[in-house]
Each structure stands twice: as structure tokens, then as C-alpha cells.
């Protein structure tokens, strides 16, 4: 019972994290809008270049490993999928920034 109460108090004390809201509506001039549009396009574009290069290299290394040792297919596949998802997550962060900018237009 004490443990339950302790965890409840702990969890409820973190509620204030959720309500971090800021005020501020700025009037966007046309050069600001142009800059925002340019930035949001460039963000995801450049991120996609790096992500695609990295994923291409990792897949090629995975395929080479499978070609050398076809029995290790399952183990290589597991590591390969995890690596691809981690590389892709960096591109996803850039995508989130791009979303944030687009909605500020």
C-alpha cells in the first residue's frame, strides 16, 4: 500500500511537465514566411541525403555479410533492421523540425 502511494505521488508530481505552454503569436512578414518555407524544405532534404547514404552503406555491409555466410542470415537481419531504424530516427528528427516550421507559416 505504501509503495502504491509513493509511486502515485511520484507520477503525479511529473504532471507539470505536460503543461509547458508558451504564449506568443508573432505576425509573420513575407520574408519570414519565405525563410520558414525555405528552411523547412532544406531541413528534410539535407537530412534525407545523409540518412540515405548511411542506410545504403549499412544495407550493403549486411548483404555482404549474408553473402559470405548464408547461415547467419537471421542474426544479420536483426542487427540490420535495428541499425536502419536508428539511422532513420535521425531523419525523423529533422522531419519533426520541418513539421514545426511548416505549421508556423
Amino acid at each position: 500500500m505504501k509503495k502504491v502511494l509513493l509511486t502515485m505521488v511520484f507520477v503525479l508530481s511529473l504532471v507539470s511537465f505536460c503543461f509547458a505552454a508558451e504564449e506568443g503569436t508573432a505576425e509573420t512578414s513575407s520574408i519570414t514566411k519565405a525563410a520558414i518555407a525555405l528552411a523547412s524544405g532544406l531541413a528534410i532534404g539535407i537530412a534525407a541525403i545523409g540518412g540515405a547514404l548511411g542506410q545504403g552503406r549499412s544495407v550493403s555491409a549486411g548483404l555482404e555479410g549474408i553473402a559470405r555466410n548464408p547461415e547467419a542470415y537471421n542474426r544479420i537481419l536483426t542487427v540490420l533492421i535495428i541499425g536502419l531504424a536508428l539511422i532513420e530516427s535521425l531523419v525523423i528528427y529533422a522531419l519533426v523540425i520541418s513539421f514545426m516550421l511548416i505549421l508556423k507559416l
Partner: protein
Amino acid sequence: MVKKFWIAVSFSCIVLVVLTSSLFASEEGFIWAEHLPFWEWLSSFQKPNPALIDFTTIDAVPVAYATLVSLLIIVLALIARFVIQFKVIPSATFHPGNVFELITEAVLYLSTDIIGPRGKQFLPLLGTVALFILFSNILGLVPGFIPSTSNININLGMAVVVFIVYNYWGFKAHGIGYLKHFMGPVLWLTPLYMSIEIITNVARILTLSVRLFGNMTGDHLVLSMFSKIVPFLAPIAPLALGLFVCFIQTLIFVLLSTMYIALAIEKSEH
């Protein structure tokens, strides 16, 4: 006999997807929660956050879907406990207990692989996280539902819980010596290492949540765009990709949480 069942199920799923894909193509995109009797009350909880993006509003609608997913998991758990007789000898044909065993064993073997024999005590946390993320992601692919993990607050909740858990177990395993993990190899490099380690640890919360959020929101947006442009047969591509991404993202979340716990409680060999 079983094979025909699965063929019929997949065929009917494809037919349903094709027929209902036009639902995505409506002006605003409709969600089933609009027909709830308490929809007015539910949608009045929106608190927009103009500093961050639109998807991080305090919104009760994804929480409603998260409640639905939780109820679904509870119902499945009750079925597994009270309805299904688990047999010790595996049966030759399809036994519904096999599905539950599959899910539990997957998470259990993953955690014991990475954490070691102590991994068994983390099965409730990791299994809950895995099931919740998996079901809410997959439910988001059905027309009319939104993935509840597409609201960053729900992902932040899970990531903060994982952060607290691995720090708590780190302190419990090492005492105050857990802070030695944050100091570098040499004592006078401690300020540099400490700042990097603290930033890394705080970034773990952010990366765990933002990765899941970005994937789910991006896939949901792509699906809705595809359905608006060509409602017939074209949404199959983002649906297939979305299904693949669902599984991968739950695997990544659970795997990373397991690795953070393992890093915190490992007994380093000198």
C-alpha cells in the same frame, strides 16, 4: 483448414481496406470518436501549444484512443487468464494460447538476452510498453482511428517512466556509486564527461518519444495524403509501409529501453 482461414482473413482485410479507403479522402478526415455521445466534452480539452507544433497540443482525443487500446489489452489479458487453458504439451493444431505465449516469450527472451538473468523482473514494464505501442500503432492504420502514439505527450509519458525506472534500478544496484558511471575514466575530466552524460541521459527521453512520434505522425500523414489524392488501391503502399514501421518502432523502443536498463545495472568487470 487453418491456411484457408488465414487466406480468407487476409482477403477480407484487403477488400475492407480498398472499400473504406475513400473514408480517408474526406475533407477533414473523420474519426470514429466523433460519434461518441461525449464528443463535445472530449474535444473541449484541447490546449494548443503555439510554441511547438500542432501535434503536441494537450488533447484528450488521443488519450481516448489510448484508453481504448488499454481496454483492449485488458480484455485480452482477462481472456488469457480465465478462458484459455494453457497446455504443457504443445498441440499440433492452432491453439490460441500460442499467440499469447509468442508475445510473452518474445519480450522475455529479448530482455534476458540483453540484461541477463535479472531481465525477468522487467517483463511487466517492457511487455506493457511493447503491447501498448504495438496495438495503438496498428489501430492507427484502420480508417477512422488515429494512432494514440501520434501525440507526443503519450510518448513522453512512457519515455519518462523508462528513464525513472533505469535510474532507480541503477541506484539500487550500485548505491551512490551509480554516479561513477557519469564520471570519466580520469578524475579531472569529470566536468566534461558529466555534462556529456547528463545531456545524453536527458536526450534519451527526447529521442525515445520523438522517434516514435515522428514515425507515427509521418506515416499517418502520408496515408491521409495518399488517400486524398487517389482513394482507390493507392493507399496500400503507405499501409504496408506503415504496418512494417509499427512493428519496427515497437521493437526499437523496447530494445532501447532494455539496453538502457542493462547499461545501468551492469556490474562492470575491472
